[in-house]
């Protein structure tokens, strides 16, 4: 088929240049420059496809690189343009010609190799646990990195609770996708995921041999690395459970799309079994826990709302928490500027995008006690932004709050009757 030869570029064809995507694009909002807008980038991608612009054109590269990949534009597009598909193909073509930038190669290399990743995580945890990350966080570039690390701190030292019991009918077996950043810095979210799923009737199994999902590589245009990681994950997860549960929106988006990435029936089938943790919890109700009296703001991650089109489920999960007063602030649906390794490669644009979100949180009345979002990059980015602005507001994953609600109900308590 002709469309196959055109790859993702064909997905750009429905664009009629109406401009409705402009207000949904965080980088366009930050610069007002058409070249930083989805519509402008589509023109660039089309020119690239037709050979009117060369893959090594620096301006082309600059403006496509500056895309966060949040796919907020897809949600605003009445014509159904497959912006993300187009971008993948364009980045793949550019990477094939000019290669990845050195900084990107370095960062992605760490994620792809266990022997680099382990010491990096160990060092990071040391900075976090000694409180040095909190001490050094701030608005400077380095301060922001420490802020990101500090944002991964669990909200309280965790006592070892009794393993919970199901309080809902049995619903099947799920395999927990551990990921790289989640596994290294957000193991408390994994624990909360495991406990809340068990309460809601799921059986959670561990799968050995799983690796980083490769989403970061894929977004950067390194499809080969992404495919290599994906193949290892397919091998590890195939036939292990009814569902693969993911609590990182970015990983979830890639894993749901495994079929597209690898093109094999196994990958296709496995992709269809991937669920965000909030989808599984919402399907079970979820069970209502004890009261958590907090003012909370929810910020939907781009890869959950745009890439996975999951909107209501996180809200359903938070609705099951008595006492929680939940709001979505103006601009909550906009990208925070984290976007995988984007923050590391384009710190200026990333911060410009984040600033609007932090300003909205700072202006919120009453001030929130916690900001909730379901993706590690967003948790770190927003957390660091709040730290840089000296706002003492913690960030947390929605399942952490549900977990806290179940704890408040006494269900993890050793003395609790079952």
């Amino acid at each position, binding site marked *: 088929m002709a469309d196959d030869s055109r790859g993702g570029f064909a997905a750009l064809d429905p664009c009629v*240049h109406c401009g409705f995507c402009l*207000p949904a694009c965080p980088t366009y909002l930050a610069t*007002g*420059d058409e070249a930083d807008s989805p519509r*402008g980038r589509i*023109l660039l991608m089309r020119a690239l496809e037709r050979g009117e612009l060369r893959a090594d054109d620096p301006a082309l590269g600059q*403006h496509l690189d500056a895309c966060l990949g949040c796919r907020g534009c897809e949600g605003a597009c*009445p*014509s159904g343009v497959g912006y993300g598909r187009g971008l993948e193909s364009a980045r793949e073509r550019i990477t094939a010609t000019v290669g990845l930038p050195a900084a990107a190669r370095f960062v992605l290399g760490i994620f792809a190799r266990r022997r680099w990743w382990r010491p990096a995580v160990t060092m990071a945890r040391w900075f976090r646990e000694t409180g040095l990350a909190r001490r050094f966080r701030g608005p400077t570039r380095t301060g922001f990195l420490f802020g990101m690390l500090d944002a991964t701190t669990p909200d309280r030292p965790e006592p070892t609770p009794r393993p919970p019991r199901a309080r809902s009918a049995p619903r099947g077996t799920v395999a927990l996708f551990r990921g790289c950043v989640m596994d290294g810095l957000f193991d408390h979210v994994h624990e909360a995921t495991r406990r809340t799923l068990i309460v809601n009737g799921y059986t959670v199994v561990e799968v050995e041999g799983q690796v980083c999902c490769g989403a970061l590589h894929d977004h950067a245009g390194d499809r080969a690395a992404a495919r290599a990681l994906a193949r290892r994950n397919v091998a590890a997860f195939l036939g292990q459970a009814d569902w693969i549960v993911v609590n990182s929106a970015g990983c979830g988006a890639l894993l749901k799309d495994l079929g597209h990435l690898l093109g094999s029936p196994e990958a296709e089938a496995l992709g269809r079994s991937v669920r965000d943790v909030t989808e599984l919890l919402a399907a079970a109700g979820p069970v209502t826990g004890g009261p958590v009296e907090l003012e909370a703001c929810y910020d939907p991650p781009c890869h959950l709302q745009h890439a996975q089109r999951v909107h209501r489920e996180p809200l359903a999960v938070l609705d099951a928490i008595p006492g929680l007063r939940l709001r979505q602030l103006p601009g909550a649906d906009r990208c925070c500027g984290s976007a995988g390794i984007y923050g590391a490669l384009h710190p200026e644009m990333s911060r410009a995008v984040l600033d609007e979100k932090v300003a909205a949180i700072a202006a919120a009345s009453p001030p929130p006690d916690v900001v909730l979002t379901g993706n590690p990059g967003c948790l770190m980015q927003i957390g660091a932004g709040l730290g840089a602005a000296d706002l003492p507001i913690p960030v947390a994953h929605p399942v952490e709050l549900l977990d806290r609600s179940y704890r408040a109900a006494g269900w993890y308590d050793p003395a609790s009757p079952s």
Partner: protein
Amino acid sequence: MSGADPDLVRALGAIVGPRWVKIRDAERRTYEADGLPTHASVPMVAVLPGSKAEVIAIVRLLHERRVAWVARGAGTGLSGGALADAETVLIPLTRMNKILGIDPTARRAVIEPGVVNARLSEAAAPFGLGYAPDPSSQAACTIGGNVAENAGGPHCLKYGATTAHVVALEVVLPDGSLATLGCPQGEPWGPDLVGLFVGSEGMFGIALEITVRLEPVPAAVRTLLADFGSVRAATESVGAIIASGIVPAALELLDQACVRAVEASIYAAGYPTDAAAVLLVELDGTRAAVEAETMMVERFLTEAGARTIRSAETAEARARLWQGRKKAFGAMGRIAPDLVVQDAVVPRSALPDVLDTITEVGRRYDLTIANVFHAGDGNLHPNICYDHRDLALRERVHRASKEIMEACVAAGGSITGEHGVGADKMEYMPLIFDPTSLATMCAVRRAFDPAERANPRKVVPTRYCREWRPEPIR
């Protein structure tokens, strides 16, 4: 790289900072079109000022260097109006996006030209106020662009187009001089130059600060959706409603092709896809008036043969009914890769006949024509779907467009109700204006811009601009 004079590029960079002067091919290319990509033209340079002082400095520089320029908002216009060519500098005003003040007592706002239309209403909402003109692109388009085009929208049926809402303007003329037109109350303060400037399609200067009227958000709003077995029945109900003296806040019609496109998009609004036409009627005002008018309108709709009438009262349900209408244009991308959008206006009483003619033209040229339009004021938007790669098809589309336009003009209408003439409808101007009137328009333009440097070669075909010039003042 651009063919721009390096010295000019340096001078522009000195004004706005080099980062905001776009000279690389890839960057300039992203400015090649507005919302009507059938017209494309890559500017010599795009320069993005961030303040009033920068805009003035740019205009003065270009005046000194005798370089033509085009001001641009968000580029959502539908007339090919904000396009610049290889000899012309493009000035996007998107960075000029500050709301300078809202006075809730006087119900006025002062804004920069790059403020996005919907943002102003959001900012005014806490005061119970809103900005009434609501072009379908309101989430993206700028009010500076609205001023240039005298933008309309569904709700201008009751509240009037942009011109009825702009009370004062601070403008920089193409020679770099400044003028303040109008006053906060709305009295013109001299000849009505605000009224003349609004809708001048960027050919009279740049509005630096815009003072607009804000309207109170109505106490009650009701949206009705009626579906009909024929387009004629739907348009006849429109006549009955208007003749009764009811002025709906909006009265919008979508035909079957359009409904199907919308329903296939993410903005699916639950419109019945088997209907020949659906009519959206919005009534607003006091609770009692809306109740009473709803009953009357429901009667008119039923009498005209509406198959079903749905009524949305909650903000969410209303928004969903509207969503389909507002995103209809973009949703056309699902029917075909390219689209000719027309904007003719006909007297309301001529709607049924003109729509029959459009259907007939579509059949004769074997084209898919989807109609979505402001029925209350007779403002038609026939969308002709095609694929630009098919040359024979393109020729048919062109001929069909012309025939439709001629039919609208013959019915006593106008060639454009809200999109503006721009580059797209210039060839139709002689259909509705005689050479003397066209020459006078050119002469008025020269009163603002003697060197014809602002948005050159738009609106009036150049040949009419040479026919008559005023004699010097005695």
